[in-house]
């Protein structure tokens, strides 16, 4: 293994991090690829949105199903996983002041993922040039069959991501051996390890099912059992979304420290919550199988509840400890009056903070509350595969993960690309516009789903069918409303992409040794200086956060029983 010298590193004046130049290049390329794919996937998303507005119906069904397949794969997998690779390398190398292990392997990760994504793109977009379609949606349930290179591309992409996971783990080994840090791993790196453990499980599940499906598509295997496929595939499809949750929660903790000089309220609690994720989060893949035949209720209930809801508990803990850490830091810095002064006086014009906080609140109230309720075995019967589903997972993946990734980008560009954020005025507004679009979009779609509108339909009016059915007018209205805000969300995404491209290609260069903004003081250091040791009220250090948590709690309880009330009015089923 090559030895490294000091000239392989630079000290970043913004963060004080010791940055390995090769690792930095890899972070740059993965993040850049991610943003390009966000643009591609987002454009297909706009096509989907404009088709699902009953009053517009832009695309023909054939093109709609193609666009929906492309949108799902690119935005759910390609954008997110490329960005996660950038985050993992950043956590392993930059945060630990360490070199990246096996840079050649890391480049193999990048190119395999890129080639895999390109193969899938060629397969999915083939109808555009008259080729055979692979419009099987991202779930690609047999017996629907795509072209062989669709599956092969996914496999290459997954193998690339798996290599990336092992590069990250190898990088941690190097850091430990070369003693680039002392004691336990920093919390955010521990979060990265959690994400990686889940990622390995996820990718192995994907390989287990996609390899036989590929062999089936080329005729070497006669039959893929559709139930078996679903059980194993969701070990990949659902768990991949859990990687996102863990990654964006790590980013929340990171931003709380970067913007406020906050430290975790309790290392033990936050790490314990990550450990609960490692142990229980993957059981959630059964959420997709709750209305399937041949699986017993005992098995479904054990798994859908993540064994006594222990992974839900973990999310509820993070939901409190992240804003709690911010509150404690703000109070220590002198904003120790009232319940919400700390929050009111937070830097709402700083997109790093506003994006992170919108991600936190939106993920909790929209993605989180609905996720807990819809995964009840019985409630699932009245929402399964309706528009509620896309509503919910945009509430997690867009409102939560994507918003958090965007927020941290505004901090990463100065550190990784050594450029100031261009179009800073636009950046100030971007999180608000994107979140406004995503929040209303999610809520409206969930409303339409509750009224029965089915997902993945090119035309929700069933036009020309002898057995006509019309959804209630209000459901169609909600679809129109939701998709208009889908376009607002796309505008927010395009603003982000413009800011990123303008910053990295034309942003003002940050000269070696100077920082684009003043260094944030550690809240504890400030408290030490001013002698402020006890903060908060009612014997709580973070009473405001506790009130916010109670509002979340009341929302879950209320929403849970509203849904059971609704369930109790339908046909008897047993």
């Amino acid at each position: 293994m090559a030895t490294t010298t000091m000239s392989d590193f630079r000290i970043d004046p913004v963060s004080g991090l010791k940055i390995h130049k090769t690792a930095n290049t890899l972070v740059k390329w993965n993040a850049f690829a991610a943003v390009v794919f966000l643009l591609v996937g987002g454009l297909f998303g706009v096509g989907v949105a404009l088709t699902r507005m009953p009053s517009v119906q832009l695309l023909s069904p054939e093109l709609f199903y193609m666009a929906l397949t492309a949108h799902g794969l690119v935005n759910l997998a390609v954008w997110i996983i490329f960005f996660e690779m950038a985050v993992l390398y950043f956590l392993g190398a930059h945060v630990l002041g360490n070199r990246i292990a096996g840079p050649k392997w890391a480049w193999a990760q990048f190119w395999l993922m890129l080639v895999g994504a390109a193969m899938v793109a060629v397969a999915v977009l083939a109808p555009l040039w008259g080729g055979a379609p692979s419009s099987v949606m991202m779930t690609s349930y047999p017996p629907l069959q795509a072209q062989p290179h669709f599956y092969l591309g996914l496999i290459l992409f997954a193998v690339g991501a798996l290599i990336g996971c092992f590069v990250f783990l190898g990088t941690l080994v190097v850091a430990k051996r070369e003693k680039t840090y002392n004691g336990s791993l920093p919390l955010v790196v521990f979060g990265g390890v959690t994400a990686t453990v889940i990622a390995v499980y996820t990718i192995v599940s994907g390989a287990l099912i996609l390899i036989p499906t590929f062999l089936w598509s080329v005729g070497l295997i006669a039959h893929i059992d559709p139930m078996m496929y679903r059980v194993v595939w969701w070990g990949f499809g659902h768990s991949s979304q859990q990687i996102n949750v863990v990654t964006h929660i790590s980013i929340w903790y990171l931003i709380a420290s970067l913007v406020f000089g906050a430290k975790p309220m309790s290392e033990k609690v936050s790490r314990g919550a990550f450990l609960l994720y490692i142990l229980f989060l993957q059981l959630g893949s059964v959420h997709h199988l709750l209305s399937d035949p041949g699986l017993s209720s005992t098995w479904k209930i054990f798994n859908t509840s993540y064994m006594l809801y222990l992974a839900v508990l973990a999310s509820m803990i993070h939901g409190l400890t992240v804003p709690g850490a911010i509150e404690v830091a703000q109070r220590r810095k002198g904003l120790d009056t009232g319940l919400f002064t700390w929050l009111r006086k937070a830097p709402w014009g700083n997109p790093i903070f506003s994006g992170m906080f919108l991600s936190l609140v939106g993920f909790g109230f929209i993605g989180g509350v609905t996720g807990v309720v819809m995964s009840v075995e019985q409630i699932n019967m009245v929402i399964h595969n309706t528009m509620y589903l896309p509503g919910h997972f945009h509430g997690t993946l867009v409102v939560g993960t994507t918003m958090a990734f965007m927020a941290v980008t505004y901090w990463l560009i100065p550190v990784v690309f050594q450029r100031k954020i261009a179009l800073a005025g636009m950046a100030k507004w971007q999180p608000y516009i994107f979140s406004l679009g995503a929040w209303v979009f999610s809520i409206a779609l969930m409303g339409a789903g509750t009224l029965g509108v089915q997902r993945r339909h090119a035309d929700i009016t069933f036009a020309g069918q002898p057995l006509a059915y019309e959804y209630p007018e209000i459901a169609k209205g909600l679809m129109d409303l939701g998709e208009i805000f889908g376009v607002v969300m796309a505008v927010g995404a395009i603003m982000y992409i413009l800011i990123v491209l303008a910053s990295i290609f034309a942003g003002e260069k940050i000269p070696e040794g100077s920082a684009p903004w003043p260094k944030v003081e550690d809240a504890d250091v400030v408290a030490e200086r001013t002698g402020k040791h006890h903060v908060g009220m009612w014997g709580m250090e973070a009473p405001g956060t506790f009130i916010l948590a109670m509002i979340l709690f009341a929302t879950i309880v209320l929403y849970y029983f509203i849904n059971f009330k609704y369930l109790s009015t339908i046909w008897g089923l047993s």
Partner: protein
Amino acid sequence: MGTSYTPPTNPDWWREPIERTEIWWIVLAFAWCLFMFGWMVGWHFVGPQNMSNEAYKTTPEAFSKKVADMQAKYTVRKDEATGEDVVSPPPGSDVYLAAMQWQFRPILELQKGQKYRLHMSSLDVGHGFSLQPENINFQVYPGYEQVTSITPNKTGVFSIACGEYCGGVDAMGHHTMLGRIYVKE
């Protein structure tokens, strides 16, 4: 002292006491988790809407035959809109519904307040049974026959939309797939 991106300043962080805000929240959240688990189990005993656990392996041929036998026995009239058979099996009996690209057949007529054993399977790819406007949703697969006891509690015309993407082109496809159930007094 300390941040989330530096190692814990106290190497013995595992022994640090937990602050009250967190303790209260953890206790409350965990109590709610246990309640939700108990409620989901309990609804199986007291709730009138639950997933059935009854399912069998089948084949499209075997299932089609069951549908045809039922249709031959219990057809009561022709549907006005389509001219197809409307099948009205007696209360308590086994009712067979086939999903196929791109329809659910046969058209059924049931009685309010009566229980039926509804058998569902697919003759080709995966589909989803979505009863509208009740909004009751199940997965339907080829090779698997799911049996659910259903008790309609309202009269009227109910439609079955497809809840799982099942392919198709412009004029016919997943988005045009429908079936129908009439419920009378």
